[in-house]
């Protein structure tokens, strides 16, 4: 009897986005629980927002204030060590994350087995320890923390400025836009006849339903043999 095929699930994310971190960790945790092929797709959120005519939520002052509480509540719920950024406008808008996303794209090309770890380390820097993620040294430290070899790290740091890597990030961003994305995280579930787009880290019960799986909350039980 043929086993059921794994459903392809694409996660479009940018480490500048804290809610994307929640979605990322939840999906990574569910890899052994759900019959899915999780494909991590770093994008440039700024490009998605611009194309959609969207604005970051914190541009509405009371939304920004609420988000601070909402982020901390969700961080506790998801068991993620997120801390609020001291100067969010400077870190998220002025500095941004383009170089970080380019670096992750280079890692995706050269050493795809490290994309999860490097993404996580970059999230930890910007959204937990309040450290830089755009300087070359910052990217090096993050990759090292993910146990990448020095030589591979240097190769990726060099590659990130190549036009084909820049193009790859643009293409990934355009793919998200074509699916109808207007923000991050954007999750595409390739089940049934057509790809189904979900936005945010608060649709997992619905995503589970679409996968014919069960959502057991943000901390699913370890697989029992």
């Amino acid at each position: 009897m043929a086993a059921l095929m794994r459903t392809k699930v694409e996660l479009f994310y940018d480490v500048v986005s804290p809610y994307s971190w929640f979605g990322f960790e939840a999906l990574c945790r569910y890899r052994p629980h759900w019959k899915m092929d999780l494909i991590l797709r770093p994008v440039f959120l700024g490009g998605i927002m611009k194309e959609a005519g969207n604005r970051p939520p914190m541009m509405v002052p009371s939304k920004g204030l609420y988000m601070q509480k909402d982020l901390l509540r969700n961080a506790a719920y998801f068991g993620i060590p997120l801390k609020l950024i001291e100067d969010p406008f400077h870190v998220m808008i002025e500095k941004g994350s383009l170089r970080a996303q380019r670096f992750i794209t280079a890692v995706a090309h050269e050493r795809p087995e490290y994309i999860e770890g490097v993404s996580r380390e970059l999230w930890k820097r910007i959204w937990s320890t309040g450290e830089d993620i755009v300087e070359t040294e910052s990217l090096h430290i993050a990759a090292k923390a993910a146990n990448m070899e020095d030589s591979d790290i240097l190769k990726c740091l060099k590659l990130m400025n190549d036009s084909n890597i820049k193009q790859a990030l643009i293409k990934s961003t355009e793919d998200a836009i074509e699916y109808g994305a207007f923000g991050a995280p954007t999750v595409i579930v390739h089940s049934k006849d057509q790809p189904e787009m979900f936005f945010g880290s608060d649709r997992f019960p619905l995503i589970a339903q679409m996968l014919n799986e069960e959502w057991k909350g943000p901390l699913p039980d370890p697989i029992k043999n």
Partner: protein
Amino acid sequence: MASSPRIKVEFFYDVVSPYTWLAFEVLCRYQSHWKMDLVLRPFYLGGLMNATGNRPPMMVPKKGLYMHKDLLRNAAYFGVPLKAIEDPFNVMIEKGTLRAQRFLTVVAHEHPEHLEGVSRELWRRIWSLGEDIVEDESLHLAAKATNMEDADIQKCLNMMNDSTIKLSLKKTTEDAVEYGAFGAPTIVLHLNGRSEMFFGSDRFPLMAEMMNEKWKGPFPDMIKSSL
């Protein structure tokens, strides 16, 4: 031994908002499951948006397209018979819901025991049957569907334009602004002398945790049989 007090939960809502209908039904269902005092507070979402500089999500075209799918998925998940509005701009923005919210404010004052029912009927009209909710006759039909007496309905309709009612709706909206609201639904939990504001119909697991209650999904009354 004294039992713990019921937690006051204020629910700020406007029937123009579909996500709010979903949250409304959930909280009504959980009244018998959670130790809470659910206080329904009809407000004017349009006024709130103006005061906070927020815009309806459908003003971003891609958000509007996504919302269409998201609403139907959520409606199925929450078991609420929501259907897409054919001309949302006309119904939600041009016609709006100010009169409906004023009517609900009167019902809250005069016949609070019917507030839940009338709110539900108005949601059903706008977001399930695609019917009007701003004409007097529409409001009358909605109230009648909850078994309100004709005389009481007429009294409420007459009171809608009183300045006390207009002010009351304004005050409720201002209360929401003071809690930091920027949209609907806005749900305020009152715990240990502090207020905790939540936005949306997708934060119930977090609210349950905060209230030391259990989130059993959208149908708490359904008994799951163990395999």
